């Protein structure tokens, strides 16, 4: 699966197998530059293209985590202990939370599906 990744504010926006050109139009400035850590040369353009081995949401998230790990950044949406989404993250597919998908993290991504990986904040005291 070919994906286009756009680091946003505290999120990654990813388009699966885009059938049209993907641009950052409408997206504002970047506040978390470390989201570019695995792709330092992509900072200016703000768009990263990547091939994923597999076509599921889980494959995408696992490969992203591996890429970040290579860059010494911990961004691991799937908790290795539970094999489910870690509570530091939220994942939406076309605006829908992944838990609403029939196959959850194992849902197959279709052409032009947009995945948002959000880094969640801690609010308890």
């Amino acid at each position, binding site marked *: 699966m070919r994906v286009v990744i756009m680091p946003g*504010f*505290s999120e990654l926006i990813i388009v699966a197998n885009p059938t049209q050109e993907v641009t950052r139009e409408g997206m*504002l*400035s*970047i*506040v*978390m*530059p*470390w989201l570019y850590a695995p792709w330092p040369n992509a900072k200016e353009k703000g768009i990263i293209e990547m091939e994923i081995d597999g076509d599921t949401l889980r494959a995408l998230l696992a490969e992203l985590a591996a890429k970040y790990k290579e860059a010494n*950044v*911990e961004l691991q949406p799937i908790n290795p202990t539970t094999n489910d989404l870690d*509570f*530091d993250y*939220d994942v939406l597919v076309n605006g829908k939370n992944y838990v609403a998908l029939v196959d959850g993290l194992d849902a197959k991504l279709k052409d032009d599906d947009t995945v948002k990986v*959000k880094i*969640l*904040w*801690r*609010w*308890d*005291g």
Partner: protein
Amino acid sequence: MLDQNELIRYNRQLIIPDFGEEGQRKLKDSHIVIAGIGGLGCASATYLTAAGVGQITIVDFDTVELSDLNRQILYWEDEIGEKKVVVAQRKLSKLNPSVEITPIFAKITKENVLSIIDRSQVVVDGLDNSATRLVVNSACIKKKTPYVYGGVSRLRGMITTIIPGQTPCLACLFPEGDSGLGVIGVTPAIIANLQALEVIKLLTGHSPSLAGKLLFFNGDDIKFRVHEIRRNESCPVCSQVLLQQEEKEQ
């Protein structure tokens, strides 16, 4: 001037070369607000009182409950039902009688936040929800008062030091997430003590370490990560354009 008692009480920090008597005097002449005196606030208030910050205003609208006692170390079982700010004032004043502790029993709102943080040099986050944090964030930007955000859940926490006009504010980052996820008592203590250290640096004129940086603490594997964060030039709270407009209108 520090008196003989203060020279003895603060000896261990006075002998730090970059701190010394000058640093202690700065702390003594300082006024901070601790917004929320729960898990985070109890720990930061304890250490900042012990360190000798001159005036500390503590704000909370809650009473002590049994379920607070795993982490809110200023409260004990025989104080269940009492106002947290009253109990905290009593304990903190016993810890260091030279610190002026002002309790405010109130919920922080858009209406009262500016008067609550008025004249404080730093606001310390001890809150437990995003909505009130964003209210405090906005007021701190308006008043140009540094705000040391801290938040926790389970075994994880985050901190950033917000310097109005220089660093990103909370609203820059479109923060999202849930509260009420539960917390192990030591997690807020770890985060709050790092917040307290940032406050001491700010008050004594040292550069805070987490200005423009976001620290993530993960107690699952005891890892700290620090990442750079940048201002959102279009931030609805702290963009220069907006602040300049507001200044003109005043």
